[in-house]
């Protein structure tokens, strides 16, 4: 238990101590070696790197240098990442064996380890984080502390205004004032649908009931999405603080964080954070000397995608099979165990303290008219910079893909971007300049979703892509309602037919009919949005569907069943390279003879195609 004065003291002392983390000109003799401990870097041996640094420093009797584990820096493709502060030197793809050299060259000799410096897309070496194009257009609010603080140390969170918003709210503001402030900020739910957060709080507050609950939805399940994980791993206290603020506003005394068991690091750090907060009296009874009591428990999910749907999540917390309830009633009216319950997503919570500290006007000055603030995206797929980015709402897809993402690798062309995961849709190149916000994404047939953003180059088949997402939904449907349980399966079967060259135009018609009716008749968001990937690909790439259905052709060569790989005799010079690379000896011909592909043996792997120096091999 710490008194308010003690907490203020810790905050002040730590802030001075950690100034070097955010200030390259910090007045200090210390250096901090920050080692990313997000899931990606951790699996690439960052804990070993951390240990090596510590061991070597000890062996060499070097003081004034501390090695800190942090959350995700964002540029996961370059991991494991090591950053040295205050000079902000960015070392990429560090291995445990590099530690010795970094200590010797950088720490002892004061020179940079050139070969480990991060390179930008154009090959230029960058000295610091800020010089990277990847970071230039980003604005970090939700990720503010990620990569800056040690997430397992509450003092470091306190140093950067941690729990100051909660203190202000509890000691200086009424519940209505806080809700009004959140409403004014324009913050909307980051879980996908974008419901105004303040409004949700207001509704839950207005619901009658002695017992209310606050829930954090950390059941991030979209393929390729890891923003919630990164926040929980990098800055867990920001979520706890916001939950406490929300609880104060709606009149709850108990909170649950529903997080997937597949996020072991996030779970561990959350538990550490909860324990530390309890230890300091920031969670528990009479928080900050007020009569406000609040406690948080973690509930582990078993990984069902549908449990990210708020009512299915509630069912799961209550110990039942994770499947949705029919709404209305909404959780604000009847949620956990029938009590009014506020459910917000991790990223939504991560914005709350910042909004309170910096004011609603500051927040609403960022973003577009109806979508305020920033949004975290996981940039993946055929893009150079894969990682976690946070951009102001209204940033265009082009800026994200080309400026931040560094464009498409291998000189290929952009074909489409998929946002919103299995619930979202495809955005083709004609909409590259659409400013990203809730409304405009919806308008062009996609959705914000939880922030997955997968870029596809021109070698991708859109029918296969739709099939991929439907495979996901079919295996993740809970099976409760008919349209989702059987309908998505039928859609998948039709897509499989099309990809196997067994489809017809009628199948496209059936696909659309199913899609529309599943959207309208399913119980929950999973079913209602499951057809989106099909509807949007049909909208923008209908011709490709028709090619599959009528001409039985997949130009992207992804649908192997339809491919017929042949050698163009005019272009073939008889070099035999294709033959050398063919894994199944399907290519016939000797010496300088023109080569012929034996269709019966060919497995359509495409190896010959990529190895032909004369572009003589193709589909058709």
């Amino acid at each position, binding site marked *: 238990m710490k008194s308010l004065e003690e907490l203020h003291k810790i905050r002040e002392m730590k802030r001075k101590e950690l100034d070097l983390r955010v200030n390259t000109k910090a007045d200090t003799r210390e250096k901090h070696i920050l080692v990313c401990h997000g899931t990606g870097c951790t699996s690439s041996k960052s804990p070993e790197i951390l240990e090596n640094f510590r061991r070597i420093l000890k062996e060499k009797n070097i003081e004034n240098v501390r090695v800190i584990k942090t959350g995700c820096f964002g540029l996961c493709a370059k991991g494991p990442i090591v950053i040295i502060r205050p000079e902000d030197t960015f070392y990429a793809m560090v291995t445990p064996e590099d530690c010795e050299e970094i200590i010797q060259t950088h720490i002892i000799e004061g020179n940079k380890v050139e070969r480990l410096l991060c390179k930008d897309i154009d090959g230029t070496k960058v000295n610091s984080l800020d010089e990277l194009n990847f970071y230039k257009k980003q604005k970090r609010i939700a990720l503010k502390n990620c990569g800056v603080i040690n997430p397992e140390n509450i003092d470091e969170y306190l140093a950067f205004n941690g729990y100051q918003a909660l203190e202000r709210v509890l000691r200086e503001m009424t519940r209505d004032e806080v809700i009004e402030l959140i409403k004014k900020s324009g913050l909307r739910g980051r879980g996908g649908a974008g419901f105004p957060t303040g409004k949700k709080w207001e509704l839950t507050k207005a619901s009658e009931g002695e017992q209310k609950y606050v829930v954090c939805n950390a059941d991030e399940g979209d393929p390729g999405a890891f923003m919630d994980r990164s926040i929980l791993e990098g800055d867990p206290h920001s979520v706890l603080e916001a939950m406490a603020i929300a609880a104060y506003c709606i009149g709850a005394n108990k909170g649950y964080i529903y997080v997937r068991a597949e996020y072991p690091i996030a779970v561990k750090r959350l538990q550490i954070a909860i324990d530390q907060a309890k230890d300091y009296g920031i969670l528990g009874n009479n928080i900050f000397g007020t009569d406000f009591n609040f406690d948080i428990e973690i509930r582990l999910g078993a990984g*069902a995608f549908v449990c990210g749907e708020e009512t299915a999540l509630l069912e799961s917390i209550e110990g039942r*099979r994770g499947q949705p309830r*029919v709404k*209305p009633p909404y959780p604000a009216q009847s949620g956990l165990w029938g009590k009014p319950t506020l459910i917000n997503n991790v990223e939504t919570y991560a914005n709350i303290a910042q909004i309170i500290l910096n004011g609603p006007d500051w927040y609403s000055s960022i973003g577009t008219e109806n979508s305020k603030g920033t949004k975290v995206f996981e940039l993946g797929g055929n893009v150079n910079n894969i990682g976690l980015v946070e951009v102001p709402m209204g940033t265009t897809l082009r800026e994200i893909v080309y400026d931040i993402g560094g464009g498409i690798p291998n000189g290929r062309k952009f074909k489409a971007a998929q946002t919103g995961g299995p619930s979202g849709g495809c955005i083709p190149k004609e909409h590259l300049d659409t400013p990203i916000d809730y409304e405009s994404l919806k308008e062009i047939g996609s959705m914000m979703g939880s922030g997955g953003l997968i870029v596809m180059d021109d070698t991708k088949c859109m029918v296969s892509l739709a099939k991929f997402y439907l495979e996901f939904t*079919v*295996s*993740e*449907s*809970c*099976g*409760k*309602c*008919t*349209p*989702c*349980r*059987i*309908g*998505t*399966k*039928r859609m998948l*079967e039709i897509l499989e037919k099309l990809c196997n060259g067994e489809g017809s135009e009628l199948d496209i018609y*059936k696909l659309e*009919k*199913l899609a529309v*009716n599943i959207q*309208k*008749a*399913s*119980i929950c968001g999973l079913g*209602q949005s499951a057809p989106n990937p099909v509807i949007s690909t049909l909208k923008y790439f209908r011709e490709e569907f028709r090619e599959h259905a009528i001409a039985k052709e997949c130009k992207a060569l992804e649908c192997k069943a339809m491919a017929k790989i042949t050698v163009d005799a005019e272009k073939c010079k008889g070099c035999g390279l294709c033959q050398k690379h063919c894994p199944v000896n399907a290519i016939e011909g000797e010496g300088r003879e023109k080569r012929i592909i034996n269709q019966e043996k060919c497995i359509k792997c495409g190896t010959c195609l990529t190895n032909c120096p004369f572009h003589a091999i193709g589909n058709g």
Partner: protein
Amino acid sequence: MEENIVTLTIDDQEVKVKKGTTILQAAKQAGIDIPTLCFLKDINEVGDCRMCIVEVEGRRGFATSCIQTVEEGMVVHTHTPNVLEARHVILDLIISNHAKDCLTCTRSGNCELQALAVKFNVLNVEFPGEMTKHKVDDLSPSIVRDFNKCILCRRCVAACKNVQQIGAIDCINRGFESCISTVGDHSLNDVNCTNCGQCIEACPTGALHEKETIDEVWVKLKDPDTHVVVQTAPAVRVALGEEFGMPIGTNVTGKMVTALKRLGFDKVFDTNTGADFTIMEEAHEFIERFQANDNLPMITSCSPGWIKYIEMNYPELLPHLSSCKSPHQMFGALLKTYYAKKEGIEPEKIYVVSVMPCIAKKFESKRPEMKNNGLYDVDNVITTRELSRMIKQANIEFTKLEDSKFDNPMGEATGAAAIFGTTGGVMEAALRTAQDVLTGEDLDRINFEQVRGGEGIKRATVNIAGKDIKVVAASGLANARKILEEIKSGKADYQFVEIMACPGGCIMGGGQPIKSSKIRSEVDVRKLRADALYSIDEKSTIRKSHENPILKKIYEEYLEKPGSYRAHKLLHTHYQAREKYKLN
């Protein structure tokens, strides 16, 4: 008052309904029949199947009419082109994963899915595809599960889990692979199922049905060397008519007897006579135990689903059970002893068929305790539904039959026995006899209204011979559980308890005619059938079991007195703790 009334418009009709009414119910009041499939009033109101979707002006997406309630000024459309198309697609999808073998399905003609297919004139399946495949589970002596016909409405799950609080079945797997199964996907025979059959009554299709055993009856009827005797339970006579289009609650005793005779049974007896024996034995057992304060409260033992339930769940409370066999078992035992001797027929040649409203009786009749001299008391149990099929297969026009009377020498029964078929009936019948025995008088008090009615638990205090006796009648296993918990925790201050496994008693048993969700939401089936039984009782000249002249005679000639050595040997039984799961 006014503020409790909501005015809304459904299909251009103004409707005024109570606040809290669902859109589906409101539509019903306006004469609009929105199709449903997973909906089963008060039991399964979950909105899973999506057939009942409607459009509500100003609302995004469809509303789920079976669970969403009306709001003032709401404008509902139940058959817009959008709704119709979605409903067609949903129905098509359900059918696409349903075994479409209607010709070889027991529920053909009484299948809610089939009825919808007819209503929507489904001529072909627009979205065919892979179908889930399930093994048929027919290892249980009572219930056959064919989940190739299951449409995952989960009405059976709700009946088992919520109404009966057994939870023998629930949904396993996810998505398209979802199916209703048991712990570890084992046979129903090897898990905590009590064989109550409420799941069958809840099923809209043929995914659940009783294990039919009428083939053997046909064979025996043909065999000149076998003396085939049939007995019918009280609840059968007030429900059998429904299978021939007669109104619910029609008493068809006379026609039923005629039909049974036409089917070729050598003798047609009444289980009600057995019920009178049960009362004699049970009332005397109660008096003895009451006076000795021995293992009170005493609990009735006529309901085999209930017996299996207590054996599996509360074995420590088994001493509270009456040791009486159920009426048809008592009667079967007497048929193979007293009747055989009297008529000079070798017991081995007597084949006893019980027509029961119950499928747990199929299990009960095969219990090893139900044997005497190596012979089962009852050889075959068929349900009300199975009897109706036999009658139909014998080309008998049931509704046109004349009435006949049960055969003698064992065809006389009292009004007390008739009400055995409804919750509270056994209690009432026992009280009629107990009060006369205790006072030694012929009391005028016959009706015990306190234990009548459809409530799940009915408590009453009855003063007999200056002593207050507290009694409870409970029906449905969820209510049974409450009573047992009271007994277990020492809170029970009553002396006599009647428990029936099925909510409402035997008239609502798992072997009775299956009523569609629509009928169940429009009429109180239990009340109609119960009223018919009480009416039989009212009209009976003898309304107390101990006054049944046949009983008197048989006790005089053969059994001596209630509770005698021979009575114990033939009419009483014992119970055993039972493992819930046999999962090897």
